[in-house]
């Protein structure tokens, strides 16, 4: 779960990482007064607080030189959508006198069996176009060694004073990541100011949502994410469902991430378009679990057909079939539903489906082709 820049910077500052002294202006409230009282020195950087990447290239960071211009720029940023979302806030910081922009990140990496530190002497908005950053595979966080990182940076960062500052910061970031369950901490740019001091000019911090049980902040972020969702989606998220909206018309209710993607791909192969990735397997395999998934897709005008595709191991199919029977009985929508259940106790499914006149397709191909046909008819 990605933190907003100002939240991430607050976390870093609490652990002693130098960040600019900024002011957060929230949309909606008394932001004009807030600016007047809180921002006195110019020039400033005004930065849209959004969770999508590439903000700098989309004009989400503006320089303002005089106080008169500030309200107009703040309003313009609050009214602009970045990656589909308008910012809830902007961050106003003093404009930094930057001598050099570099790049530093700490991230979970499968190859490293833990954390990897990445550094590039040239950072900024075009980091992805440049040569790949140097990698120091740390592994478990307690394995960070200053001398090993020094060896990695030896040839790529000739300024030894700066190099030592970067290494000390990297060590601290790894510690922060482990203590606060961060899967990524990326500082780009890591600014070298004109007096040689180091400053985290930006911060992208991603928290591990599964640490919610031991971290109040992450728990709060999860709850806030649900609050941002509309009511129908919220009910589904409350059941631990995983949902990604897509642009097609076949609503997919599925179990298991891999099978959900396999079904999406097969829908496309048959000339159809999936309306979503919706993996219900982490939730209860009961009526209570599936009811919100149907309510959401029934309420979505984009969805023409619902395809239920579940291949369960620990999930027992007679339970899923009974849940389907109950959901179908109480459901008001006339959208057609196509079923393909397979897995543990699938032999009990036909008997249950017979009771409410449903058909269980034996193969995914048959179910997908039926769903694509029905979607074509509805269009």
């Amino acid at each position, binding site marked *: 779960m990605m933190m907003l820049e100002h939240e991430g910077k607050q976390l870093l500052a609490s652990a002693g990482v130098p960040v600019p002294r900024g002011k957060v202006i929230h949309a909606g409230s008394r932001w004009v007064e807030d600016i007047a009282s809180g921002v006195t020195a110019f020039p400033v950087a005004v930065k849209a607080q959004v969770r999508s990447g590439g903000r700098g290239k989309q004009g989400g960071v503006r320089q303002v030189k005089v106080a008169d211009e500030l309200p107009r720029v703040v309003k313009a940023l609050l009214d602009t959508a970045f990656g589909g979302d308008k910012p809830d806030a902007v961050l106003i910081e003093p404009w930094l006198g930057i001598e050099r922009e570099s790049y530093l990140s700490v991230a979970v990496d499968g190859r490293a069996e*833990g954390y990897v530190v990445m550094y590039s002497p040239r950072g900024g908005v075009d980091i992805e176009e440049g040569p790949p950053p140097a990698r120091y595979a740390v592994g478990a966080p307690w394995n960070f060694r200053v001398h090993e990182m020094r060896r990695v940076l030896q040839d790529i960062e000739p300024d030894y004073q700066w190099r030592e500052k970067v290494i000390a910061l990297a060590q601290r970031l790894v510690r922060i990541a482990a203590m606060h369950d961060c899967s990524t901490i990326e500082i780009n740019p890591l600014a070298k100011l004109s007096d040689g001091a180091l400053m985290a000019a930006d911060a992208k911090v991603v928290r591990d949502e*599964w640490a919610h049980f031991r971290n109040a902040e992450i728990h709060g972020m999860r709850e806030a994410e649900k609050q941002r969702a509309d009511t129908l989606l919220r009910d589904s998220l409350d059941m631990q469902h995983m949902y990604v909206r897509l642009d097609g018309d076949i609503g997919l209710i599925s179990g298991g991430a891999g099978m*959900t993607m*396999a079904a999406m791909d097969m*829908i496309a192969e048959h000339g159809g378009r999936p309306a979503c990735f919706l993996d219900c397997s982490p939730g209860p395999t009961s009526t209570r679990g599936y009811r919100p998934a149907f309510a959401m897709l029934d309420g979505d005008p984009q969805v023409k057909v619902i395809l239920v595709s579940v291949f369960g191991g620990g999930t027992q199919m007679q339970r899923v079939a009974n849940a389907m029977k109950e959901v179908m009985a109480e459901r008001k929508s006339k959208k057609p539903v196509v079923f393909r259940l397979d*897995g543990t106790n699938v032999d009990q499914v036909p008997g249950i489906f017979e009771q409410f006149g449903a058909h269980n397709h034996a193969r995914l*191909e048959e179910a997908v082709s039926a769903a694509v046909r029905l979607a074509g008819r509805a269009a």
Partner: protein
Amino acid sequence: MSILLDRTNRVLIQGATGQMGTFFVEDARKYGTKIVAGVSPGREGTTVGGDVPVFASVRTAREETGADSAIVFVPPAAVLGATIEAIEAGCRLVVATADELPVLDTIEIRAAARANGTAFVGPNSPGIISPGKAKLGFMPSFCYKEGNVGVISRSGSLSYEGSKRLTVAGIGQSTVIGIGGDPVKGTTAAEALELFHNDPETSAVLYLGEIGGSEEVFVAEYASRAGAKPVAALIVGQTAPPGKKMGHAAALIGSKAEGHQAKIAMLREAGVHIANGVGEVVSATRAALASHAKATAAA
């Protein structure tokens, strides 16, 4: 043969008295798995599945029953403690199926497994099955049949679907291992490939992967090595948008190299037999087996 699991493993279950544990005892025993002990602190002295004794600790369970492998069915917050207990008590194989495990905990478990020479499978995985011999996980037994294809999967449900298609087509499996959908894994694709490489019963490998992460780089590396066993692969997520987490923590396209097209190109370049969609799993595996037969005949 098979990898990591066969008829000789003596299995203990941590969290044996919970719902998953109870279901597993019955299901896995029916399949032939030797379940010798349960571990549930506070419930010692009782039994599960009729006659399997329950102990307070892994150490006692090992001393009393000779258990050498563990499967962990405890809530995510307790997985770290339970797996490390099994690892440090000397189990040779530890399977943790739990999803929703903080990645930091996996990092710690993996480090402990390495230090103790334990094979750790999981998390976020259905477990491991050596068809006809034993299973450590809750995969549906009827999907599998004994044979010579090793299967590695990042996704549980996809491994059931893929294996069932092989079984229906008459192609059996030596071992099917769920390496899991998380970015840090107990057993990586590279490690699983190495195990299959050294297993004389395995003739070819079917790899079931996803978009996101770098696991497939190692599959390609293995496949292009001289003397490698033939590999077939399916990568799902062709229709997944970039920048969105598709259920699994690791199934997120963060860069071009992690997308579907780049992975397929890389695997094809390495000589992997590609299945375009789950419907081609059988034909791609057949092609891999055929190239193994050809290589064997030539040698």
